[in-house]
């Protein structure tokens, strides 16, 4: 459903040389040229004659872009770098220096932590503790049965109930999960893509039961089903139906809860599937525009809806690639909104981004090393700037589910970067760096080029249906794996400084044995106590809505309040929409 015009993205701006690139150098530049030539001849070359460089060539870790020995003002001159056009001031277009004028001098980023496991009661207890420890919000991850739209007693659910996240079967579970110190909670992020309308309806109904005013906090939904088809795999219905129900959630939320965030493009998932930064941004933005086009088709104006679009990214260990990615991320979004969609409001062009140190950089081997990695990546998050929230994964995440100690260290890492390093005290401190500005521009140019390739296929939905993203990611996964196996890319503890006979000493979180039993017991009890006629009647309404084109959220809310289970509601939609089975091409394997 591609309704917004897909104009070429002002490609002339970067494909044709800018006047400054081809014009003869200024006197200053000629002098610099001469000075550099002299320096190379008289200073550098003699030094290298004694001892050569430690590697034959230097490239960035993910993009494999050549890295020069030295960046000077000439590099900026060559790309026609223009301070106002490329960078500007914080809080102003193109927002390269950040979306707010005062950056972290005003407010530090929100410190979030991904968490959630066990029954709803276990989770509420742990989240309450985290809020008391100083977090402002958290991300709820649900277990696999919940995110796949199955009840806890479904045969496929066995062994997975309450394991990788919180189990939610009915409204009763959500009521328990949201038993929280609400005065401390500012931001709640709910990650439940395929059954998102059911999840939204359950949260709304639980808030109503608890008497919590929905506008008292920000609920951020991932609602990111197109990413699931691309790499994560927790899809239910065929892609176009996935897009429809995601759009229903977006439309419902914008109309009824305007301070919530109904869509999050979790490009971090692409990153976790080994997308390089250009793939991550290009696929992520293409997907974001697919949701945007579908939403605009519901009768909105771009400036009414664009401010709701929100993103989550993950960072790798290559520091300058990471910083450049964050800066390009903001600039590209601003340009897309202004140039492609004709947005006028600043809020439409200001990227909302949660950035997080990435889990794929963490290693199973020598897990304590991951604390150093997290510190460095968190620093890149802070220096890349403009993220309004940062999540820290946990140093033992590569091992298993995170331990409590790891949660504490994750929070501490963010606070150390915030309070002990001074990096948050000036806005976008790496701006003007010859290297960082060159790399930011290169990132921008290559992302636009890849977006145009996706456009030529008909946009993200068509690219997913054709298996393009999946195939590209499969190749990246293989290449990345080979680089580590053959040592082209050093990873400490994995292929460098390896210790033989290393013992794992990290404390690992153990799930209570009875979580699954308790969850199934509660489900059975709820089913026994509810009004079956009302359940059947409300489910029939969901079916009618699914067959037609009415928004699914209100009828699902009625079913939820009647204590219909998530599995039952999803089954009704399975009947109507069908179930998605990718083939070998569209699975990428």
């Amino acid at each position: 459903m591609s309704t917004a015009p897909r104009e070429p993205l002002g490609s002339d701006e970067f494909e044709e040389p800018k006047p400054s690139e081809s014009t003869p150098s200024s006197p200053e530049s000629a002098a610099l040229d001469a000075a550099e030539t002299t320096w190379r001849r008289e200073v550098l070359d003699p030094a290298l004659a004694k001892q050569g460089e430690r590697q034959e060539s230097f490239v960035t870790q993910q993009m494999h872009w050549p890295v020069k020995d030295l960046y000077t003002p000439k590099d900026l001159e060559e790309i026609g770098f223009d301070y106002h056009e490329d960078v500007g001031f914080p809080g102003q277009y193109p927002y390269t220096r950040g979306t707010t004028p005062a950056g972290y001098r005003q407010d530090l980023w929100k410190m979030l932590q991904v968490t959630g496991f066990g029954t709803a009661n276990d989770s509420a207890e742990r989240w309450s503790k985290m809020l008391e420890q100083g977090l402002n919000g958290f991300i709820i991850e649900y277990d696999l049965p919940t995110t796949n739209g199955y009840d806890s007693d479904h045969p496929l659910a066995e062994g997975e109930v309450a394991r990788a996240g919180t189990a939610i079967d009915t409204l009763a579970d959500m009521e328990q999960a949201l038993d929280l110190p609400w005065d401390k909670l500012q931001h709640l992020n709910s990650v439940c893509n395929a059954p998102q309308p059911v999840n939204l309806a359950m949260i709304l109904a639980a808030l109503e039961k608890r008497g919590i005013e929905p506008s008292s906090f920000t609920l951020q939904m991932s609602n990111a089903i197109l990413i699931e088809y691309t790499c994560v795999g927790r899809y239910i219905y065929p892609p176009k139906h996935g897009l429809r129900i995601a759009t229903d959630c977006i439309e419902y939320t914008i109309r009824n809860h305007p301070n919530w965030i109904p869509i999050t493009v979790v490009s971090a998932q692409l990153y976790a599937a080994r997308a390089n930064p250009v793939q991550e941004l290009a696929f992520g933005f293409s997907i974001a525009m697919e949701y945007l086009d579908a939403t605009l088709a519901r009768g909105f104006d771009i400036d009414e809806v664009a401010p709701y679009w929100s993103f989550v990214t993950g960072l790798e260990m290559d520091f300058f690639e990471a910083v450049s990615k964050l800066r390009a991320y903001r600039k590209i979004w601003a340009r897309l909104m202004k140039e492609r969609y004709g947005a006028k409001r600043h809020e439409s062009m200001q990227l909302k981004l949660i950035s997080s140190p990435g889990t794929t950089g963490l290693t199973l081997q020598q897990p304590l090393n991951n604390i150093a990695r997290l510190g460095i990546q968190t620093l890149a998050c802070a220096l890349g700037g403009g993220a309004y929230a940062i999540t820290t994964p946990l140093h033992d995440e590569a091992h298993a589910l995170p331990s409590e100690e790891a949660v504490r260290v994750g929070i501490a890492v963010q606070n150390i970067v915030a309070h002990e390093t001074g990096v948050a005290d000036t806005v976008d401190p790496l701006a003007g760096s010859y290297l960082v500005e060159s790399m930011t521009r290169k990132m921008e140019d290559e992302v636009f080029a890849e977006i145009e390739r996706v456009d030529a296929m008909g946009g993200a939905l068509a690219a997913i249906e054709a298996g393009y993203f999946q195939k590209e990611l499969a190749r990246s996964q293989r290449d990345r794996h080979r680089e580590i196996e053959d040592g082209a890319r050093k990873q400490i503890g994995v292929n460098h400084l390896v210790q033989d006979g290393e013992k794992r000493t990290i404390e690992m979180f153990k799930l209570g044995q009875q979580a699954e039993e308790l969850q199934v017991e509660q489900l059975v009890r709820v089913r026994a106590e509810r009004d079956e006629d009302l359940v059947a009647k409300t489910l029939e309404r969901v079916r009618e809505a699914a067959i037609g084109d009415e928004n699914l959220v209100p009828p699902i809310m009625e079913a939820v309040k009647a204590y219909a289970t998530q599995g039952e509601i999803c089954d009704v939609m399975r009947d109507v929409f069908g179930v998605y089975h990718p083939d070998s091409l569209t699975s990428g394997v």
Partner: protein
Amino acid sequence: MGERKIRVLLAKLGLDSHTVGVTVIAQSLRDAGMEVIYTGLRQTPDMVVQAAIQEDVDVIGISSLSGAQMQHIPKVLERLREEEIDDKLVIVGGVIPDEDGEALKAAGVDQIFTMGAHTGEIAAFIREWWDQGDR
């Protein structure tokens, strides 16, 4: 030694949807000259065993990263015995705690490759098993 290629079924059981590992392994085993068949996501133990029979595979590789290995894998082994095709090589890869790995081996899994295992090592293990057999 067979002229035919070694046939490997790669399987994902239950709701585990982490596919990076299985994608990498599929490509590396193909590069090592094997025929790879992938079941796709959300398989039950019975579906995996049926696929193994239909595809007449020599090796079954199960990828498990969600933590539900003890729920599904022993059932696959049991079904293989019931179908009397437990002569196939069964290998498991992913996030498998040591104690679960021991239990799975005792139940009939031939080898466990946890995260960080070299893909070449996996291909070599399969090849060695194949060459030892009287095929």
